[in-house]
């Protein structure tokens, strides 16, 4: 498969055994750890900061800045969690790393833990993932057996334990503080900030939570050095992005895309264009919580934050969904709002009440019982969830709703007036 640009993560051929420790070592695995342990912990953080690596979980927060809050004080307890609760609809890139490059994650977590003074690290993996769980647990077991985990490594006094913590079905666990509450063995209610989790996180101890892909970049950054890493991608978006693409696309799957790669080219050439040669209506750029962009809007854009953000959307979690002409956006929004309603944890008022409310409204519209004011109501509920909730979920549902309403208001008006879909309620792309 051709790949759009240079690679940091998907830089080897996937075979039935390529995830093993043996083959990972043959590719130079764990050599970077040895190199890193000769550096001062603070120098690793400095290198990661210099690399300009942005978080790959969705918010694109600079990884180095997050780490900078944690000071590795000897004797103090710090925790690291890899966020493998990949639950944003349309997103399945971390799953690729867990299944195919689990040792890359383990090595990266070792280097990160060394940098941050962490003795215990966690991989929080979504409960439904079975093969990804077995692969990462298998890799960790191999690493224990090989002496990388559980005892001092490479003649230093640094030792790390990694626990794989399996969720049990909840989207909110992907939110960093919800994840932490879940590891504490409770319902994953997100927490108010302040305090930040890097100040008071897991069991009130400073905790860094990084997305799997963010962490997977660490080994590459330390191996090649920040300067080399920055040569990949763009000045403001260094490196690459794993993009998982699905929907009405000819070749769905996970692609490593160098930041700055032309978006249209990616879709038309690398992904083989639309399914059944259909015309593209719009695309969800990075998980359903990012606002949809029409084909015309993405035409001049390249895949990097500084290009996509000004267009009113974002790279998000890299979960791209291509949507063909003829798809009913009302029904599509119904699917999304049903999801948000299902996954609201119910802790804070705007999201708990707002998600159910929006879901009831959209269901009513689809039943043919919509009224013209429903559109304003959806806008109002979205606005009342914007920045008002404990975690970002209320905002996300609002973005998704407003994104679709802004661009396809006519479909909603048509549905309400005619009591039926402009496109037969179609979600599939017909041949």
């Amino acid at each position: 498969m051709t790949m759009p640009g240079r690679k940091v993560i998907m830089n080897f051929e996937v075979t039935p055994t390529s995830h093993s420790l043996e083959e990972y070592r043959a590719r130079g695995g764990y050599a970077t750890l040895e190199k890193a342990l000769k550096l001062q912990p603070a120098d690793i953080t400095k290198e990661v900061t210099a690399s300009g690596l942005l978080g790959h979980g969705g918010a694109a927060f600079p990884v180095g800045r997050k780490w900078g809050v944690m000071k590795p004080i000897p004797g103090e307890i710090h925790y690291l969690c890899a966020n493998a609760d990949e639950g944003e609809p349309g997103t399945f890139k971390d799953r690729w790393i867990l299944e195919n490059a689990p040792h890359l994650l383990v090595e990266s977590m070792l280097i990160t833990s060394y940098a941050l003074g962490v003795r215990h690290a966690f991989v929080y993996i979504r409960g439904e993932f079975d093969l990804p769980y077995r692969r990462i647990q298998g890799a960790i077991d191999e690493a224990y057996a090989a002496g990388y985990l559980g005892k001092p490594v490479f003649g230093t006094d640094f030792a790390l334990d990694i626990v794989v913590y399996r969720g049990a079905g909840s989207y909110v666990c992907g939110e960093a503080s919800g994840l932490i509450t879940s590891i504490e063995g409770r319902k994953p209610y997100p927490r108010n900030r302040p305090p930040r989790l890097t100040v008071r996180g897991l069991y009130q101890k400073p905790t860094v939570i990084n997305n799997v892909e963010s962490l997977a970049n660490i080994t590459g950054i330390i191996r090649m050095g920040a300067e080399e890493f920055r040569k990949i991608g763009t000045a403001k978006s260094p490196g690459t992005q794993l993009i998982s693409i699905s929907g009405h696309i000819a070749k769905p799957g996970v692609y490593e895309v160098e930041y700055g790669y032309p978006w249209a080219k990616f879709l038309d050439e690398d992904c083989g264009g639309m399914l059944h040669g259909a015309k593209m209506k719009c695309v969800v750029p990075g998980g359903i919580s990012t606002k949809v962009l029409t084909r015309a809007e993405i035409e001049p854009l390249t895949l990097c934050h500084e290009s996509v953000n000004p267009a009113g959307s974002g790279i998000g979690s890299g979960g791209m969904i291509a949507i063909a002409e003829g798809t009913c956006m009302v029904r599509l929004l119904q699917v999304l709002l049903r999801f948000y309603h299902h996954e609201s944890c119910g802790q804070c008022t705007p999201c708990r009440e707002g998600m159910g409310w929006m879901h009831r409204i959209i269901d009513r519209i689809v039943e043919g019982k919509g009224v013209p004011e429903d559109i304003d109501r959806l806008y109002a509920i979205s606005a009342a969830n914007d920045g008002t909730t404990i975690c970002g979920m209320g905002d996300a549902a609002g973005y998704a709703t407003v994104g679709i309403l802004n661009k396809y208001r006519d479909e909603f008006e048509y549905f309400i007036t005619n009591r039926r879909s402009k496109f037969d309620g179609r979600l599939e792309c017909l041949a």
Partner: protein
Amino acid sequence: MKHLIPEFEKMKERYPEGFESSLVLPCLRRIQEDRGFVAEEDIVALVDYLKVPRIQVEEVLSYYTMLRRKPIGRFHLQACRNIACSMRGAEGVIAHLSRKLGVKPGQTTPDGTFTLTEVECLGSCGTAPVVMVNEAYHENMSTEKLDRLVDELAAGVRAGGK
């Protein structure tokens, strides 16, 4: 549950000290794997073992969609109905399964073989639509593949095998 305590003790070894509360979720998952669901006696034994408030265990059981307190069918068919799967025919898949099994989503066939559940995104959007059968993902599903899958599972039960 009590026969699982040696396993739990082993699991504990990799956790930092004072993480008993964290073991609630992994223990419940293991109990469910063992029994098929979490029974009242499991809750009592787990509360006694971990010394956590019982209400915490009840809350967790009620919150997470994968945990259950009642037995279900031998094969749990979980069909994703989120965006990517719906765009690739999940609604047809679910309707077909429902017709074929003669049950609505959320129900179990009278012989206790199949339980059909609609679920939200399983992270298999690139290979949509996806149906989970117990722990395993079955991807790129079509009505033909579903028929084959369900028939094979049912035949296995009739033959008395697994």
